[in-house]
């Protein structure tokens, strides 16, 4: 944890930070790969929710180039296997996520991101 499926759902939510606040940029991270159970229904169900470009870019930054630049219309097993690996098996254990817009840093400690805001960042 933080898995890329979760990373794909988290945007900076500081006050007045509404544009260019996603995806958060990983910095100084430690990765772990852990096997997860494969479930094609879960993956297919989740695909419409994904910000595809953010996912592909982030995966590439972390060294995984298995996903196509465009989300395919037809999904085959090979594609689902890659998606499964990227979404669920790559864990960011330490490091931080920085907002590309306001530069807020969200630290990750033992796999748990701290998404709390400071006082002046609350609307």
């Amino acid at each position, binding site marked *: *944890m*933080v*898995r890329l*499926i*979760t990373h*794909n*759902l*988290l*945007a*900076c*939510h500081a006050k007045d930070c509404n544009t260019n606040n*996603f995806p958060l940029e990983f910095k100084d991270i430690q990765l772990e790969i*852990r*096997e*997860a*159970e494969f*479930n094609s*229904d*879960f*993956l*297919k*169900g*989740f695909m419409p*929710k994904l*910000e595809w470009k953010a996912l592909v870019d982030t995966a590439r930054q972390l060294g995984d180039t298995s996903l196509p630049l465009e989300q395919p219309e037809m999904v085959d097993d090979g594609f689902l296997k890659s998606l499964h690996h990227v979404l*669920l098996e790559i864990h960011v254990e330490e490091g931080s996520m920085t907002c590309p817009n306001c530069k807020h840093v969200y*630290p990750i*400690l*033992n*796999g*748990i*991101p*701290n*998404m*709390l*805001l*400071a*006082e*002046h960042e*609350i609307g």
Partner: protein
Amino acid sequence: MPLYLLHFAQAHNDFRLPELASVAELLGISYTLPEKDEDRDPTRPYMVVELETEEHAKMLARRCILIKAAYEFYAQGPSYEVLHEANRKCEPLWRKYVEDTSFKFLVTAYSHKIPMERQRDAIETFAYMGFLGKIDMKNPEITMVCFEEYKDRTQTPRQRNEGDGDFRQIFFGRLIEEGSARPLVRHFDVKKRLFYGNTSMEAEVSLLMANQSLASSPTFRYLANPGKLVYDPFMGTGSMAYPSAHFGAMVFGSDIDGRQMRGKQQTPGVVRAASQYGLASRIMDLAVFDITRNPLRCGELFDAILTDPPYGVRAGAKRLGRKKSLPEYKKELSRQHRLAPDPEDRPYIPPTKPYELSHLVTDLVLFARYVLKPGGRLVFFLPTVTDEYEEVDVQTMLCNGMEVIANSLQDFGSWGRRLVTIKKTTAEKYYPPTFEDREMVTKDEHVPAHKDFREKYFQGFRKVEIETPQVAFREG
């Protein structure tokens, strides 16, 4: 449709019918309850229901936490005469076992102990069934049970074998399936968990919540992940997550206080507990944030929200911000702190202010409408002062597109808590809720009984030792 006798645990009576309804919906089973109120009274241990097939009775017994066993129903009556008359009439149901089926025959009682001798006599009265197979107490092909139902001892205290024969009703049937979900109560026992705290929810209730959520696998191969995603926004030590994950869902959890989820070791406590059950990979992720200041990029993500909101007794509700807003110079100090955080003080924990329960609950329902998929369910606890509770309380929390489908009371005497199940019945898109402060309740607005629950609790509508709302963990 054929009739089946369900033997229920005498626990959480108010949850019995909602659980049956939810599990039946999940498994695609249709059933009919007995017509008369007294025959479906959830304080009684036996209930005869109509089901399409025996397989359905088995499925229910494998999934309902409150079912102890399911039987093919043969007969019932207020006396043995009536019972036997009915049993003779249903001979076609049991005739096939007469010839050479090994069997076991039991006469037993609820809330009473039948003396051995009368047990034997009672068994004798079934002699007309003429079973020719061998009696096998260890591995019989079929087990037939006759239950005498006595009045609850708590209502009419008496000795265990006093008033023998003074039963209210007798039921008779053939065992189909022992309930196999019920042992999960022990499997998930909090005391045996590697990580728990003073906010952990007892296993039985967490399991009932999981069954209310419908976000689980309809099959019994638990490893068959049904692709459902469950969320607990007040995750704490994660009690709600483990049963859901066991039933096949992926779980996402968040909490304003990371220490509640982490405990004191490096591997987060929630992950340790999940690993103990072999469910670590079903904890999708954990994150620290205030539900009112959440970083979720979009809505319609989850199949269910299962949660125990902070109602202030054991873990006071908080939200980011201060009671009064800070003067500018203090804000500046806080800004400085952010720019150069004290390494010892990592992660920075911003100040929080109290969060009134009725506001929190209203917000929770709005939030759930935003983050649930259409058809998704919000299952949560609502504490309430029993005397003051009115049905309208739950209604005042609702918004368009969110409907209450179950509301069960767990009664602790002068207070109680309700397990509320709300379904998102709309497919409309909503903006994320604003969670604006609602400091004032206008006069003609209904004030629900759970308002200011914490205050009432501390004013002593219940005499208990109040646990301090500090972080407290037990590590195994």
